């Protein structure tokens, strides 16, 4: 089974939250800034725990932060 391509709206959500910096988000989510960079570039799919932590920072449901790219291909 191939890897599920997971996209995210982190950059947009950061912008909508008073232009939160990557460093600020990293500190709130408990990861390094490099991991936020990798997430935004689509180079890393986070663990479920980290995904929830990021969603909690933005006070948004998980599906509003992360989504499956080309969902129709996997249904």
């Amino acid at each position, binding site marked *: 089974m191939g890897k599920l391509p997971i996209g995210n709206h982190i950059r947009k959500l950061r912008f909508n939250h008073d232009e939160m910096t990557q460093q600020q988000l990293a500190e709130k989510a*408990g*990861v*390094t*800034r*490099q*991991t936020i960079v990798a997430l935004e570039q689509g*180079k890393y799919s*986070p663990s479920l*725990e980290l995904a929830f932590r990021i969603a909690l920072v933005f006070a948004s449901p998980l599906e509003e932060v992360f989504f499956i790219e080309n969902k129709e291909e996997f249904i």
Partner: protein
Amino acid sequence: MSYQEKKNIVSLTGTLLIFGLYCLYVFRKYSLDGLDSTDTLSFWGAFILILIPVSIVAKIVITIVFNIVYRITTKEAEPAFSDERDKLIELKSTKNSHYAFTLGFLLAMGSLVLEMPHSAMFIILISAGLLSEMVGVFTQLFLYRRGV
């Protein structure tokens, strides 16, 4: 280029430099010619036992110097901890590193079966150690760049 990529490149350069200089020093000082079987085993035993602390101390020094230079040049502190992505990449690189060393170990044992000199076995074993470290570093560089 991220902190982790720079750190890996410095680590690789440091490893090759330390190993190269150590080999140069040892093989200039001692010649393997004329050593009987017992002396050969003792020589290689000492070679490995001295190489381990020398490389550990040198790596600590290199890491400290690198962090100082990184802070000065980028005006950014190095990450204070390893998060889940760092740990995942480290695990994958350790796995590849172990595969490389296991291959070298089997080759070293093969040299004994083929009744090659003891020195050949130690050279293969030490080379496998160096190669496994390089495989580990290259895996990390690849995963940090391509993503995981």
